[in-house]
C-alpha cells in the first residue's frame, strides 16, 4: 500500500473517531395521563403507565372521555376502569376535543398514553368517534403521546426503534426520549432513512438555481447531511453506551415506506418524530408510516 493511501486510511480512522457529544435533555415524566377506551389494549396502557411511574416517579391519572351524561354507561365504564387496573380513574364529561385542548393548554402532562385507535362505543353517548379522536389528539397537543395499538404483553420499553429525522430541531428531543425510555439492559436502535423522495424535491429546487450544478448539488447536500447524521448517530450511540443499554445506529437510503416496516421486526416500540412540528404530524410522512405498521406501539413526539 502506498504511503498516500495509508495516510488517507489512518486520517479517516481518526476523523471517524471524532464523535460529537450529544447533550440529551433530562426527561422528567411528572404527570402521565392515560386515555382509555376499554378495548383489549387497556391493560397494556396501564402496564406501560405503571412501569413509567415506577421508573420516573410519575403521577398517573386514568381517564375515560364521555361526551354526554349516561348513568348506565358511566357505571359500566367505572367497572371497566377498575377491571383494567385503574380503579381511581375518572370519567370526564364533555367534548373530547375540548378536553384534549385543555390537556394541552392547562394540564400539560409530560406524556399521554392512549389506547389507539380509541374505539367507538355502542352507547348512544359514545365517547369518541373511532380513530378520528386520535388524530384530533395529535393535532391539538404537542405533548408526547404513546399510542398503544395492540394488546401488547411485556414491556414496550425493551427494544426501541427510533426513526431519527434529519437535521431537525426536535432531533435532541427524540434522542432524549429514546434514551430516557429504554430499559436498563434493553436495546435501542437509532435509524435514519435518507429519503430519496425528499432528495428529488431538493433537486427540483436546485434546478431553478442555475449557478448550482443540480446533480452535484444534490449529491453534495445529501452526502454532507449523511456524514453529519452518521456523526450524530455515533455520538448518540456513544452516549447510550454509558446509559446502561445496548445502542446501535444505522443509516439507510431509500423509500421509508419500504424500509421501515422491514426494520421494526422484533421492536417493542417505534418512536416517530413529527418532523419539526407536532401539529403537522397528521400530514407528515411519519403519520403515514405509523399507519403502515399496524399493532406496534408508537411514541409520537
Amino acid at each position, binding site marked *: 500500500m502506498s504511503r498516500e493511501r495509508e495516510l488517507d486510511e*489512518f486520517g479517516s480512522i*481518526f476523523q471517524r473517531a471524532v*464523535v460529537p457529544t450529544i447533550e440529551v435533555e433530562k426527561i422528567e415524566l411528572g404527570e402521565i395521563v392515560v386515555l382509555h377506551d376499554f378495548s383489549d389494549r387497556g391493560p397494556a396502557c396501564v402496564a406501560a403507565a405503571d412501569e413509567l411511574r415506577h421508573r420516573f416517579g410519575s403521577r398517573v391519572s386514568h381517564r375515560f372521555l364521555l361526551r354526554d351524561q349516561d348513568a348506565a354507561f358511566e357505571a359500566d365504564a367505572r367497572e371497566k376502569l377498575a377491571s383494567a387496573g385503574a380503579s381511581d380513574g375518572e370519567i370526564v364529561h364533555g367534548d373530547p376535543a375540548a378536553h384534549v385542548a385543555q390537556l394541552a393548554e392547562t394540564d400539560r402532562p409530560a406524556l399521554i398514553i392512549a389506547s389507539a385507535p380509541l374505539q367507538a362505543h355502542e352507547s348512544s353517548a359514545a365517547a369518541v368517534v373511532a380513530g378520528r379522536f386520535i388524530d384530533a389528539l395529535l393535532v391539538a397537543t404537542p405533548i408526547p403521546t404513546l399510542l398503544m395499538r395492540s394488546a401488547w404483553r411485556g414491556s414496550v420499553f425493551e427494544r426501541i426503534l427510533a426513526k431519527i429525522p434529519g437535521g431537525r430541531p426536535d432531533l435532541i428531543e427524540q434522542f432524549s426520549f429514546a434514551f430516557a425510555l429504554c430499559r436498563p439492559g434493553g436495546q435501542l436502535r437509532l435509524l435514519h432513512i435518507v429519503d430519496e423522495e425528499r432528495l428529488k424535491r431538493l433537486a427540483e429546487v436546485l434546478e431553478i438555481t442555475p449557478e448550482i450544478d443540480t446533480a452535484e448539488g444534490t449529491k453534495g447536500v445529501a452526502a454532507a447531511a449523511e456524514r453529519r447524521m452518521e456523526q450524530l448517530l455515533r455520538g448518540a450511540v456513544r452516549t447510550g453506551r454509558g446509559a446502561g443499554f445496548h445502542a446501535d445506529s444505522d443509516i439507510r437510503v431509500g423509500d421509508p415506506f419500504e424500509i421501515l416496516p422491514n426494520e421494526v421486526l422484533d421492536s417493542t416500540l417505534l418512536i416517530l418524530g413529527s418532523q419539526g412540528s407536532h401539529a403537522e404530524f397528521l400530514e407528515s410522512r411519519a403519520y403515514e408510516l405509523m399507519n403502515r405498521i399496524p399493532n406496534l406501539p408508537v411514541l409520537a413526539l
Partner: protein
Amino acid sequence: MITIFFALLLVATLLCLAFEVLPKAVLSLTVAGISLFAAAAWGVFGGQAHGGGHHIPAPVQLIEWPTLGVIIGSSIFVEIASRSGIFTWSAIRLLKVSGGDPWRLLLLLGCLTLVFSAFLNNVTAMIIIGSLTVVACKRLELEARPYLLVEAFLTNVGGLLTLISSLPNIILGQKAGITFVEFFLVAAPYCVIASAVTLWMARKRFGIVPLTDKAAREEARQRVMEFDEWETVEDRGFFKASWFVTAGVVILFALQSYLPVFKSEDLGLQFVAFLGATVMLLLRPKAVGDALRKVEWSLVFFFVGLFILIGVCGDEKVGVLREMGRGVTWLIDHTGMFSSAILVWVTGILSGLTDNVPLAAMLSKMFDPATTSPDIWWAAIIGGNLGGNITPIGSAAVVVGVTLMKREGIKISFVGFIKVAAPFAVAQLVIGSLYVMLLRAIL
C-alpha cells in the same frame, strides 16, 4: 583493478540512492547482478561457496538472512496487530490524557512517537501519529506544523530505543552481538535525554506553552473528549488478544538471548518475529493475504541486492571494504578519545545525504566484532539513525511528516526545513557525541 571497479560501483550506487535515480529495489538488484557477474568473472567466489558438503550459491551466502527474517516477521506481525486498533486506540487515549493543552499535547505525542517508533517501523509510527496530530490540531485549532516536525525528529530518536526499532540497529546490533536488553539499557538514557532536549527546544522555538485560562482549558478538554478511542476498534476480542500477543512478543524479544532453546543461534530474533507473526495469523487467518501483501517487499529486495553488493565488496579479493575499513581505523586511531564522537558526525552526515541502510551494512562489514570497541558500534548506530533529521528527504519518517504538512496546506521549502531542523539535528548529534564518549569511558 578489481578494487577500483567495485569501489566505483559502490560510490555510484550510493549516489544513485541519494538522488533517487531509480526505485531502491530496482537499483540494488541491478547492481547486485552486475557485481555478481563481475565477481564471478574475476573468480572471486572460487572455492568459497560450499557448506556442509553441499554447494551453496554465493548470493545465498552473502545475504544476511536473519536480518531479512526480522524485517519480514515484524512486518507481518505489525500489520495484523495494527488492524486490531491497539495503536490507534492508545494514541487517542493519550490525546485525551493531554486534555487538549498544547504543551501537554506536544509532550505526550512526543512520548508516544518515541514508543511507537521503537516498536513499529518509523514510517508506520509517523503515519499513525501524524494522522492523529492533523485531526487533533484541527479540533483544537492549533497549528499542526510544530507537532509534525517534532514527531518526525523524534521518530528517528525512538528508532534508537530497541534492537528492532530500525534497520541500522538490526544490521549493526546483530553484527556486534548486542542483545535486546543490552541494546535497550544503553540506548534508553540517550533517547530520554535527546527527546527531552528536542521537546524543550520545540517549546522555545515554536512558542508552545500550556493554557493558563480556565475556560480555555475546559473548552480544549471538551474538544479532545469528543474523540472516542473505541471507534477505532472493530473487534474487542481481537483487540484484547493483540495486546497479549504484543506484550508476549516484546517480552520474548527481551528475553530471547537468555531463554533456553530461544537463544540458539539457529533461531534468534527472527524466530521471535515469525512466532509473533504466526500467532497473529492464527488469530486472524483470513488476513494472511493482506498481511503478506503489505510486507514491504521492495525493501526486502532492496536488502537482498544490497547484501550481495556489500558482500562482494567485503570479499578479501575485492578489498573495497577492507580499504575503507583501513581509512576508518586510521581515523579512529588518530582521533583518540574523540574517535567515536567523530564517527557519530561522519555517519550522521553520510546517512543524511544517502540511505542509512547501505551505510550500516558497509560499517557492519568493516568492523570486526572481536576487536571493535562498543562505543564505535554505538557511534555508528546513533549517527546512522539521526542523520535522517537533517533534510526533508533524509529519512522516510521525515518525508511522511513533510507530506502531511503539504496536505494541510503548510508550505515548507527544502531550505526552510533545514533551517528549522538543523538546530534539532545538531543538538541530537552533539548529545550523541557526548554520550558515546561517556560510553567509551564506562563500557
